[in-house]
């Protein structure tokens, strides 16, 4: 397809630690098209951050290493790009913002200083012009008093304001792709909504593609066009947001949807999937979700399921699709 901006194929990033090799990201493949917002969801520990950091070669190394697969950005494989080339990509072609707005800005430099730096790395303009550009970007992301804010330090701003600064900085060189790793997780609900609205606006007006990492399906429902569900380092389901929310195929996705708080429901207790994400281990056999899956049967513990094509670009990593062909797994969602 011509309008594919980013294509991960079989990306595997492993950590080589004292406790052995951890396949934190295991043969992950997905695409982001031009102008699209793609969500990557999964509980914490499922490898979302490692996936997104791998794209920009920002994983701490050692111990982390991309062991196989490719990351094609506009046709170029970033997994094989040199550090020199990556410096031209980062912040210029692909920008990234992070979960922790409180700690993601350097506390000892002013906002203006840090924004100017981001601008002048990629654009050959004067310091004065860079300051003007910084102020213009701050205004674009809805920061009041932008002229004063450039002279302030991060600790003088609230979490939501800092995340806006991060977005302004990320957008300052007009990137084609914005990777946002849990950009709203650390913020209050109202601020969360504002930041998501801002990202929607950027996507619409600047035509920037967005790869949005989150553990919150509510966020996905709000802003994403398509969704990649990850579990323990693997992709377990892919589809459009509508399909995934209306008709989840993988038991894990179904569990995630069941655990969403329902505004109109009268449930006493919030559902949550029992257990926690097991640390990915090398050479383990069986479906990674099997120990927590209410539908698990013998085969799930003996063989590794592949991603089954379900038509219409939908994929799901579950043996149920071969066992009960055609039958949909709706009982899980309707039983609650």
């Amino acid at each position, binding site marked *: 397809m011509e309008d594919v901006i980013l294509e991960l194929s079989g990306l595997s990033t492993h950590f080589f630690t004292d406790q052995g090799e951890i396949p934190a990201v295991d043969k992950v493949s997905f695409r982001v098209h031009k102008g699209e917002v793609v969500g990557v969801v999964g509980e914490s520990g499922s490898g979302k951050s490692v996936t997104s950091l791998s794209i*920009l070669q*920002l994983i*701490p190394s050692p111990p982390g290493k991309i062991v196989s697969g490719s990351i094609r950005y506009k046709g170029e494989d970033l997994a094989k790009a040199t550090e020199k080339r990556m*410096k*031209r*990509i*980062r*912040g*210029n072609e692909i*920008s*990234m913002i*992070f979960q*922790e707005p409180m*700690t*993601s*800005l*350097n*506390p*000892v*430099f002013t906002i203006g200083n840090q924004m100017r*730096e*981001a601008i002048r*790395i*990629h654009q050959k303009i004067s310091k004065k012009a860079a300051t003007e550009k910084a102020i213009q970007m701050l205004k674009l992301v809805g920061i009041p008093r932008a002229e004063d804010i450039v002279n302030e*330090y991060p*600790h003088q701003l609230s979490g939501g304001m800092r995340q806006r600064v*991060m977005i302004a*900085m990320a957008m300052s060189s007009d990137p084609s792709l914005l990777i946002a790793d849990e950009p709203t997780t650390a913020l209050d609900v109202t601020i969360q909504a504002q930041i998501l609205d801002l990202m929607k606006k950027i996507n619409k007006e600047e035509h920037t593609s967005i790869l949005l990492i989150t553990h919150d399906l509510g966020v996905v429902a709000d802003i994403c066009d398509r969704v990649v569900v990850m579990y323990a380092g693997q992709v377990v389901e892919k589809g459009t947001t509508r399909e995934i929310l209306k008709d989840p195929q993988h038991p894990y996705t179904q569990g995630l949807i069941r655990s969403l708080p329902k505004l109109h429901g009268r449930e006493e207790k919030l559902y949550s999937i029992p257990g926690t994400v097991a640390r990915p281990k090398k050479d383990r056999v069986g479906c990674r979700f099997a120990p927590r899956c209410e539908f698990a049967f013998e085969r799930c513990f003996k063989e590794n399921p592949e991603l089954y094509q379900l038509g219409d670009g939908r994929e799901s990593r579950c043996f149920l699709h071969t066992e009960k062909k055609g039958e949909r797994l709706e009982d899980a969602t309707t039983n609650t």
Partner: protein
Amino acid sequence: MVTYIIRRLLMLIPVLIGMTLITFSIVHLIPGNPAQVILGETATGEAIANLEETMGLNEPYFVQYWNYLLDLLQGDLGTSLRSKAEISSEILPYIAATFELTFFAMLFAIIVGVNAGIISAWKQNSWFDFLAMLFALVGVSMPVFWLALMEQWIFAQELGWLPAYGRQDSRDPIAAITHLYVLDSLIHLDFARAFTILKHLILPSIALGTIPMAIIARMTRSSMLEVMKSDYIRTVRAKGSGQFLVIYKHALKNAMIPVVTVIGLQTGVLLGGAILTETIFSWPGVGRYVYEAINYRDYPVIQSGILVIAFIFVMINLFVDILYKKLDPRIKY
């Protein structure tokens, strides 16, 4: 910033009063009659009475202390019993000598220590890191007097490269202006002399600066390693900045915050150890001045020397606090 400095200066007042109380009581904590002790066993009653009169020892303590404070405020440190000279003018060259030595020792410690720490952190677990940290470990465990004597033996006696004693060539003394000899010789535009004086500074500066250097190197390394893991460093890399900017701009300024505290404390420790080094290297500094005064029971000089060293220490701390504030905009008082 200005209000901060003013507030910080006001906070100094109680510290300074405490210091003067201590130096004041030095003379009065001597068991027995201070005048008797100062003059020795054989002194006549008349001589003792005279001394008590001139030192004002007959007055009540609070009157004596008040007078002492008033004198200090006017820059009057009293008179040396031995030389009968004004201490305030006599002590200046000694202060300059100590200051110059401390300055070069700390300059050596900071330049070498900070850079070794940065490179060690940058190239963690490399051979450089390994050697530098081994060196630092040896450095902190080395007694200063031993290092000083070894230096003198190897570089002065055996190799003859550097002078072992004094601040300058004693056959050709400088016409002092500030008594900071490096500065003075530069004012005279006498570069050959500046070179000789710098050569005199090398061995004592290294002897005095090695322990602070080792401590600063280790502190810088661990602080850098900590900072390099932080989220904002990841942000800087995500912007597309090169490694040099990441390390020397973003990481260093944050990493220096704890290191500056260590530098301040080490300067104090170094001043405290000045008597020893100044004696070994025949360095005419405050330490030596006080040391000689002790031999002569010259109490006014002892008192003033201690006061001056304490005062310098307080000033260094003030400077460190201001630097701290400059480095870390989050600090509020």
